[in-house]
């Protein structure tokens, strides 16, 4: 089960973020824009769902040394959440995500990460950033 519908998809084991691309001005939105293009100079209403790049460069990163409050469900015992903001060059978008399998000591600004997925502590899957394969 996905923790949120329409934001990402898992196909053949590969995880993809889903956005929209405006048919008029080519502006990409993540999460998907509904109804109209978010470029105020455009106003197009013809939006196609597209998969975003699966790789990007770390813009910044951090962790949560203490369990975040609800509605986050923290694992027990608590495993520090790692977060990365990753810049997708082609789309010109920075996307936040939890990080799977790496700690802050493993991360560097500018390093490549690849999209994967993992479970929230109560089960549903969410996109995550992980080491490149």
């Amino acid at each position, binding site marked *: 089960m996905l923790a*949120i519908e329409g934001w990402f998809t898992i196909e053949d084991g590969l995880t993809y973020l889903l956005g929209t691309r405006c048919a008029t001005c*080519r*502006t*990409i939105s993540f999460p998907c824009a509904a109804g109209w293009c978010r470029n105020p100079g455009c106003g197009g209403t013809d939006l196609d769902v597209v998969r975003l790049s699966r790789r990007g460069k770390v813009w910044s990163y951090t962790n*949560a040394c203490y369990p975040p409050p609800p*509605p986050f469900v923290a694992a027990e015992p608590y495993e520090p959440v790692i977060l990365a903001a990753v810049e997708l060059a082609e789309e010109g*978008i920075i996307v936040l995500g*939890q990080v799977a399998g790496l700690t*802050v000591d493993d991360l560097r600004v500018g390093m490549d990460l690849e999209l994967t997925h993992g479970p*929230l502590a109560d089960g549903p899957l969410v996109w995550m950033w992980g080491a490149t394969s």
Partner: protein
Amino acid sequence: MDVGRDLVSGVYVLGAGMHPWGKWGRPFQEYGVAAARAALADAGLHWTDVQFLVGADTIRNGYPGFVAGATFAQALGWTGARIASCYAACASGAQALDIARARVLAGLCDVALVVGADTTPKGFFTPVGGDRPDDPDWLRFRLLGATNPAYFALYARRRMALYGETGEDFAAVKVKNAHAGSLNPNARYRSRVTTADVLASPMVTDPLRLMDICATSDGGAALVIASEAFARRHGMAGAVRIAAVSTVTPTFPNTAVELPVIATDSSASVPPPERDFRASIAHEAYAEAGLGPEDLSLAEVYDLSTALELDWYEDIGLCPRGEAAKLIHSGETALGGRLPVNPSGGLASFGEAIPAQALAQVCELTWQLRGAAGARQVTGATAGLAANQGLFGHGSAVLCTA
């Protein structure tokens, strides 16, 4: 869009008042009314003189918080005055001031009261209750566990990577602000701290430690503002002038990783604006006032974290990008320096009482520009800027002159 200077001349701060910040645990109305009464007394006016009241809302105190204008008006005693209530997250106070100023400038009233107050729960700010998968503020907690300090930490780590800054550089901000706060009777934290204290405090969200991050506080602040004609009639021609209020929003594409969103706009098909959002906030205030950073005597900036104060130095034009650490270490932004920043002690000494905070910044500008800031006084202060950012794209900056 620059507003002509002539248009916005002539709105003055006649009174400023605060209820001390703390964790008092009493209803927010009490702090708001205490601050309002203090501001009215400071102006030499009575509540019945006020024609328009704007309340900055709080979203964590039930219905009375959503209709703060009515809540404060009722608590002060119904007079039939016109009211408004507004919410703009951390920028609520400045937004409320802007609404009051616009009504004065439009000639619809002569004297207005602006009030903000909050009572905060313990711990991290959390989203409003209920399952709301369409609300980015709910989603960032649910999917990512991304608290407010986590975003501040992303900005701090970015500075370390780009400019080689360290935890010691960030700690210098706390040391400076704690010293100023130790001199401010309205501050919640009044102890001086050392760099070693900051570096020994627990890591919360790497690279930020507990003492790098502002607390959540209870508090209240209020301002009485009036038209130039009213100020003259009351013999207050020398009052502090509101030279600009900037309440700008981002320009597409907003390329900042903005609290609380999970992704930026795309800059692939439309190039980013010349100035990013935070830089545009002060820029618009300077343009409206016809002044620049070189004209400032002091600034109050929104130091939600120590590292964020360094971002603000660059955003409001005090130094080029990447040189904020050099500026803090030079001592120029400390009390006694060339351009003190957060002479009130800042959020580091107050903690954040959301709807009151932007008004508290203007209270400090008022006292400084009157030469009435006591042990914190910036000598010969003639112009001060308060800069602030509220989540979901609310910028605010207020520029006042003596």
